[in-house]
């Protein structure tokens, strides 16, 4: 297990390096530079370029960036005059993380819950109701559901605030909007998985033992059915994170998404790179955690890791 973790860690770092490299060169490959939009006299522009080191060869800039990155320095924003990117992140990430975690938790609880209810009532109206919600959820993009929720609950019913982030009431709509797609996806996965598990021999054995239906579902069916859900938690975290850009701007939440968009609009190299590296590291870490969680639920995964080591 330990060597498996070390190996995964090395792979993660390589992934991150590839990410940094790709984004670094891609950003530079975009036409123009951060100072083109501002109406500057050519000599001042040249000065700015020299100040940020753009007059150096590209590979030299790259290695200097990597060197700074190793020390945890993500550079300073070119747009927001000399505010370190790390500070931008530190100020805005808590909002994004708060929203993202709420959405993830809600998607997991509601999604698996609906999946279970749906599978247990297969072919009945409750099942169909869940399927309809699931199809709606996967088909509606978050910018549509986000505005719809604002319209219905904020403007028409006037029960919930339509924007900002100032307490629990304010979190409800953005959380629902952000988790809608994921909830629907998890409902479908959980339902399919439950229906597959119910046909397994060990469920029949559990019935032959005289266990009550509730215990069979809780102890044997759900536990086995939840594995595919855990598998997709990694990619789903990614989906929710990217979803925050849109939702944050719809609900005027002071999260990280704004800086990403502004950074790209202004070709703010260090801001784009810094945020990408941060997101990348975050996602890689999330996937890593999911892998470990998977091993905790299914003991067989642990043995594969042992085999892994021998190989």
């Amino acid at each position, binding site marked *: 297990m330990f060597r498996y973790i070390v190996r995964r860690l090395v792979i993660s770092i390589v992934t991150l390096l590839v990410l940094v490299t790709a984004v670094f060169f891609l950003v530079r490959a975009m036409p123009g530079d951060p100072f083109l939009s501002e109406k500057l006299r050519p000599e001042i522009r040249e000065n700015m370029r020299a100040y940020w080191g753009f007059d150096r060869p590209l590979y030299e800039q790259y290695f200097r960036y990597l060197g700074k990155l190793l020390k945890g320095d993500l550079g300073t924003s070119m747009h927001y005059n000399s505010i370190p990117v790390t500070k931008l992140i530190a100020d805005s990430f808590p909002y994004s993380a708060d929203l993202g975690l709420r959405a993830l938790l809600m998607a997991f609880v509601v999604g698996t819950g609906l999946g279970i209810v749906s599978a247990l009532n297969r072919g009945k109206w409750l099942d169909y109701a869940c399927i309809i919600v699931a199809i709606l959820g996967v088909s509606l993009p978050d910018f549509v559901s986000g505005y719809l929720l604002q319209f219905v609950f904020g403007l028409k019913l006037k029960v919930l605030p339509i924007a900002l982030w100032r307490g629990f009431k304010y979190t409800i709509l953005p959380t629902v909007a952000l988790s809608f797609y994921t909830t629907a996806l998890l409902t479908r996965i959980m339902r399919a998985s439950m229906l597959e598990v119910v046909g*397994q021999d*060990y469920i029949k054995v559990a019935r*032959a*033992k*005289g266990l*009550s239906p509730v215990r069979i579902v809780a*102890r044997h069916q759900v*536990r086995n059915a939840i594995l595919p859900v855990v598998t997709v938690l990694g990619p789903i975290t990614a989906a929710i994170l990217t979803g925050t850009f849109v939702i944050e701007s719809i609900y005027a939440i002071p999260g990280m998404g704004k800086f990403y968009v502004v950074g790209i609009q202004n070709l703010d190299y260090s801001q784009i790179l810094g945020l990408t590296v941060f997101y990348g590291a975050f996602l890689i870490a999330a996937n890593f955690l999911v892998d470990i969680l998977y091993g905790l639920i299914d*003991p067989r995964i642990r043995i594969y890791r042992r085999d892994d080591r021998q190989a």
Partner: protein
Amino acid sequence: MPNSEAKGSRAGSKLIEVEGLRVSFSTYGGTVKAVRGISLSVSKGECLAVVGESGCGKSVTAQTIMRIIPSPPAAIEGSVRLEGRELLTLPERKMRSLRGSEIGMIFQDPMTSLDPTMPIGKQITEGLREHDRSVSRAQARERAVEVLATVGIPEPERQLKRYAYEFSGGMRQRVVIAMAVVCKPKLLIADEPTTALDVTTQAQILDLMRSLKDELGTAVLLITHDMGVVSNMADRIAVFYAGEVVEEGRAEEVFESPAHPYTAALLRSRPRLDRDRNQCLVSIPGSPPDLFAPPPGCAFAPRCGLALEICRRARPAGFALGESHAASCWLYHAKALARHGAPSRGKLEMEACRDR
């Protein structure tokens, strides 16, 4: 099979009695009549082997006795009595309290019978604690260790926390058996308990089941298509064909003087060590009838070399051939006996299997 004489003599000690059991499933293709009027019984401490080829209704019968076949969609008629108590009409809650405690069941494939995400110890104790809430965790654990030792798992205390994948097929089947007998059931239904195992392991599992039967006094309903398994274990044999019992008797009677042409053919198609190895294996020509539309007469008639005119028209009743031996075959009707005499085993085997 309604042969009252054979059964009447030991009626007092009957543990489970199945009478006129019919099970059919509605599918998109029509109604499959999987079990078509089966009667059998198992006495206390006895082993009844149910023998037949795939799809003859063996497993459906077993699962109907346990009532773990969902109904509907299955349509179930007839009667199943455990010590005189009717099971088919029992409320589900009461039925549940019998499952696992009075009737234990072993399934065919030990690789899939155990929950991969739960330690085996817990899988053994959960049945125990379900049926008797007064059993403490420690007591249940003790009992699990005890039962694992009984089924021949070495160092049972150390195995409780282990998972199914850490055991070999034979060991898993031992665990499955331990799960089935932990509550000391009166009846153990074993649905092809050795089919998924290799031959050496098969023998060990059969030995184990025999000793459990002798030590615990558990009656066993053994379902198999393997004649070798039958001869090892069974006191009595019921031969199934197309959802019916075609012959029933004590093991030695059925083995030594099979009466039904199907039984004779089945016995003849066993591979044998004392024959020339270059000789082809014997098979029964034709295939079992379509259970969507079973034939009006004897289900075996189309494949039977000895079939009479009546065999294709009417279903034969059970004819008693002795104290405990009976066969559902028109050849044993008084008229047929008067005209042709009782068919000899040689004739049965030759004719029943003759290639046509």
